[in-house]
């Protein structure tokens, strides 16, 4: 039976280049034994055991009795992690950046919260499947562009279609806060560097008017349907989060002050290049940050060369709730999520805190921590086993990954090509 599957896989998989087939539901109990378990909340269990049934973790700890039923996986010397989460990415919305036909990430319009990413999410994306072998198992599928880009949803990365994939549908609205300094329009002859944005005040006011109108609309007794206003309602009742993409001190301050006054219940800052300078303000207001990817260049020449590397640490040290994201990079780069955290660890951040920024913290920020992000009894068995430290490319080597207890494939379009051509050269004796 297994052989037959393999043959089918080879015949169809290779010829059609289709995505790996999603794994079936967990059919029997699985126990991973003897591993270093990174819980995702800062704790680490040496020589630990984790047991899961029907997709949920049933027990976890150091001194568990070895189970007698189901599958046992000896993971001695190996590491177990909660599945890494890639927030704020248009994964599954664009396949090849330069091929317009494959691009569904940016709809026309400045304020379009009603535009929903989930229905365009391509569960069979080859880019998405390439996340799994590196331990990135969950993502927040996020529309791009405009001021209010649309509404994101959170998915897991092993599914037949977007309904199967959805973990949390329409979880939040993404807003690109205007910049009070903008880049020079070099194509119109201006120098490239940042210069004052003469429209900053107006752009902020446009946002304010839109929020005010949405709020007023939500209170109206008789409504003629307004799709954009209606989509905003969740922000005021707390069912949706507001992700504000902003970097500067002034912008973040303006944005948070505005959003709080507008009655938004959950505010998240995405980016936050200068957030460390107003960490106290963010802490006072209880604002978490999905911090800018560490693998980026300093924005100013005078900035410390390693400022992007240590940004997460600066925010963590200031007592903020921090997750990590790489929205500035290509989709395919999201598989490097682990290494972005590793880079922050290289700057002196505690390793388990590094893991939290990929798992527990991010789940909390996204509001999926009831089921995901940490390895605790009752939560989803979405996790993976790595030969070594998963935040270091030198040792990130997955042997197993599970999503909701399902044993997901670590093969991809890329591993198939690898094997195919290694096979070719072997066959030819080269």
């Amino acid at each position, binding site marked *: 039976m297994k052989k037959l599957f393999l043959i089918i896989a080879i015949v169809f998989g290779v010829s059609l280049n289709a995505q790996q087939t999603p794994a079936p539901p967990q059919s029997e109990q699985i126990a991973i034994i003897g591993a270093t378990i990174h819980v995702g909340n800062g704790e680490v269990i040496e020589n630990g055991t984790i047991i899961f049934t029907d997709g949920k973790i049933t027990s976890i700890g150091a001194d568990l009795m070895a189970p007698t039923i189901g599958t046992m996986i000896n993971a001695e010397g190996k590491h177990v992690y909660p599945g890494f989460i890639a927030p704020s990415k248009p994964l599954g919305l664009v396949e090849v950046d*330069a091929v317009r036909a494959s691009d569904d990430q940016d709809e026309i319009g400045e304020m379009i919260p009603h535009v929903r990413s989930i229905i365009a999410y391509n569960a069979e994306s080859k*880019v998405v499947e390439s996340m799994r072998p590196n331990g990135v198992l969950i993502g927040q599928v996020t529309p791009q562009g405009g001021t209010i880009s649309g509404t994101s949803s959170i998915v897991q990365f092993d599914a037949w279609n977007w309904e199967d994939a959805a973990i949390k549908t329409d979880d939040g609205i993404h807003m690109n806060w205007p910049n009070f300094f903008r880049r020079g329009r070099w194509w119109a002859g201006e120098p490239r*560097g940042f210069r*004052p944005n003469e429209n900053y005040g107006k752009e902020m006011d446009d946002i304010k008017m839109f929020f005010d109108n949405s709020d007023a609309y939500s209170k109206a007794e008789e409504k003629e349907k307004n799709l954009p206003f209606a989509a905003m309602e969740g922000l005021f009742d707390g069912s949706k989060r507001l992700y504000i993409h902003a970097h500067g001190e002034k912008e973040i301050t303006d944005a948070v002050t505005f959003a709080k006054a507008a009655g938004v219940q959950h505010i998240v800052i995405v980016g936050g290049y200068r957030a460390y300078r107003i960490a106290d303000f963010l802490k006072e207001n209880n604002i978490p940050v999905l911090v800018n990817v560490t*693998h980026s260049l300093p924005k100013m*020449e005078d900035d410390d060369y*390693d400022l992007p590397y240590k940004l997460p640490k600066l925010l963590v040290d200031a007592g903020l709730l921090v997750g990590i994201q790489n929205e500035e990079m290509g989709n*395919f780069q999201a598989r490097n999520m682990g290494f972005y955290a590793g880079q922050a660890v*290289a700057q002196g951040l505690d390793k388990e805190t590094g893991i939290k920024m990929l798992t527990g913290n991010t789940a909390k920020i996204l509001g999926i921590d009831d089921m995901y992000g940490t390895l605790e009894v009752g939560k989803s068995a979405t996790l993976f086993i790595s030969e070594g430290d998963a935040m270091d490319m030198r040792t990130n080597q997955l042997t197993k990954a599970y999503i909701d207890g399902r044993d997901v494939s670590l093969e991809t379009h890329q591993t198939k090509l690898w094997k195919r051509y290694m096979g070719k050269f072997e066959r030819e004796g080269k």
Partner: protein
Amino acid sequence: MRLKLLALFLFVGSVSLFAQDYFPINDGVKAKKNNNYMAFTNAKIYVTPTQVINNGTLLIKNGKVVQVGKSVSIPKNAVVEDLEGKSIYPSFIDVFSGFGVEKPKRAPGGGRSAQYEPTREGFYWNDHIMPENNAIGSFKYDAKKASDLRKAGFGAVNANIEDGIARGTGVLVALNDDASEAQRILSDKSAQYFSFEKSVTSPQSYPGSLMGAMALMRQLYYDMDWYSKGNVETNDRSLEALIANKGLTQIYAAGDNGNVLRADKIGDQFGVQYTILGGGDEYQFIDDIKATNAKLILPINFPDAYDVSNPYEAEYIELKDMRHWNMAPSNPKVLADNGVEFTITLHGLKSPKDLKDKLMKAITYGLSKTKALEALTTVPAEILGKTGEIGSLQVGSQANFLITSGEIFDKGTILYENWVQGTKDIIQNKDIKDVRGDYNLALGGSTYSVSLTGSIDKPKAEIKKGDEKLDSKIDYSADWLNLSFTEDKIGSYRWVAHVMDNSGTIKGKAVTPNGDESTATLTLTKAFEEKEDEEKASEAPQLMALTYPNTGYGYASKPKQETILFKNATVWTGESILENTDVLVKGGKISKVGKDLKAGGATVVDATGKHLTAGIIDEHTHIAALSVNEGGHNSSAEVRMADVVDPTHPGIYRDLAGGVTAAQLLHGSANPIGGQSAILRLKWGESAEGLLFDNAPKFIKFALGENVKQSNWGSYSRFPQTRMGVEQVYTDYFQRAKEYDTQKKSGQPFRYDEEMETLAEILNGERFISCHSYVQSEINMMMKVAEKFDFRVNTFTHILEGYKVADKMAEHGVGGGTFSDWWAYKYEVNDAIPYNAAIMHSEGVTVAINSDDAEMSRRLNQEAGKIVKYGGVSEIEAWKMVTLNPAKLLHLDDRVGSIEEGKDADVVLWSDHPLSIYALAEKTLIEGKVYFDREKDKEMREAIKKERNLLIGMMLNEGKKGGPTRTPVQSEKQTFECDTQ
């Protein structure tokens, strides 16, 4: 021949002063020529800035200086002006002006597809080469601007058409409103002008970059030579003009310190010494600037302070820009101190009015007044070959001179008159009577107190009755003083007087509100006293220290070679990893590798627990470049990345902090045949020239795939648009290069062609190709083309489907420089896999991991780590992919790339296993000099913070004093990738 013609012309030109004698006239009598003299006596006369006559006499006639000296006998038919206490200077000259020449207008249109062909016929093949243009052709004397220029002290300006790369000739004009063109045009082909900027009048695509403009200039000179020898059967009016203009002063509008060096380099190659328009930042590379031996035309548009009152805005200003604000006014002094000859231009100033302020600032910053005066008089005259005619007051020279109240560059000095060719222009009446002071005015039974202050020529009035201040108005011109004032409930009084002398009383006629007229006298009660200037000019400004380069992380002095012993490190040699090993760095080399080495005089670095490796070599980068693509032609083999290296680019320092010591600066992928590569050593602080890897082999960038087909942007007019066409481009160019080379080697005359020369080098094995490539078909094609022409491709870069043809690559002998895990960004990378490097390696291809990206470049060690992850390559082999293998691909592996005794000491000390994400580069050395040190970096961060604060304080002060300020803007360096346009 040409010179003779020119001389003839000059002769005709100079006689033309009187030549109107032969013109018939019909508007009066002809015998009305003024042959009288004018004598200016008792003046301090600056015949030249260094030849000064006290109490001298200047005698002029018919617009020329007849005599100058202490004892000049004044002819009887002379009008004499006593200039007791006043000074006479030669009028100024501006060598770089747009006076009277209309700026060409931008050509309309410009569709989506670029225009590759020229618009013109009968001229050079490139529209941006226009030596046949003469400013005189469109010159129109502008009396209004001439007046502004005279007010600033100018007597002659040299105007040119500021458009195009070869701009043709300028016109030298005396600012004499009363003269005819026949008299005031001093030269209608005064100098020949060049720049690096394309003409706005043509959309022709080439050159699209600075390096393209430089290559075009070089080819232009070759073509001129070829044409002048009669080898071309058709007519080329551009080349003919260029040949004709050879004897003129050659002026290059460069515009900044880097471009000054670039222009000079071109000149050196062709035996031309340009006079070069600078940018005011020459002090940053003064040694290199001095070495050009060029005379400079210097703008003095020193930047205004930034308005830094808002800290959020101030954040966007880089230290280097703040520092430039602080240091730019010292530029003229630095140049003068270093013996660089320069003239000062109004170019870049908003208005000629600003000249004096800026000059005084330069003088405050140490420029001598003599140098300043020379820069405006004798030096420009010399540059234009007009010494003895303008710029001084020697006998026979034009009577272009200034009459001032004193030292011309002093704050209170008044410019009274500017004479040009003997024509007087009164800027301010020198015989004006000073009416300033406090007076009483008795009128209609009341006494009013009148206080006149302000400047001599435009006094201000304050009129009071008792303590009550009255609304008043004053006008003072041509000795007539007119006051009017209004008293509440009574009405307006008017008073007017002809000022006779400075006796203290001014008698005038008053008219009361009811119309009564009477005589009323102003009686002086208190003489006027000039208020002490609050700002003391003598106060020496605080100058920041220059660093190398002059940016935030520049070093106070260039790093020096050190002798260092790294003790007890884990050492990565070419083929093995040695534990607990010492490495001695001495004389710029890796002197010894072994156990328990003796320190001798070496600085000992405890490397216990640390790793010492060779410096990373990025085989494919675009950092530190001012341009990356010359896409104006489908082949641009003639352009050189070495021409456009930017030694101040922050990417250099950041790469050093990531353990990178050398990098190949590649041309982009805009065309199948790109430009010549530059191999750099990241010697932060050196000039562009100093960054080039000495004696490095020659390389060129080729490119295949979507970019050269222009697939991802809307341009449909350039061949090739398909991979099929790409092959034909190569076949065509190599075939022609082969024929060119045969012709050249045959000893027959041939047109020197930089593009063909470069391609012939490839055929002759003297230049190597790094070829940007993606899919297997094109990779295969490129190798077949090379084999057909009997050479080998050296390196495929990108090479993302290299794994599909790795066996063929190994057989061809080509290496692969690839990315670890990039894909999905365009169609041709659908099959790019992170196992690519591992597969190519296993098939025996020399593999390098490179960046094409400023961000990735500074952590290539991690990218090498990914090769262990994807495909299980051993750690030492993975490490070689960022060190020894790129060294091999660059043919530099005998000098760098691994830790071996005798190799150059380009090494990195890592805090951890170098393939690990946790490794930090602690020290990075090039040739035994420490170019990055984490400890030193920390100190520099503090220093930057301090200096920023200091400068911000100074700028706030400037703002408080009412100095001009400007809105903060960031001056960002562009970061390039292959397909950056």
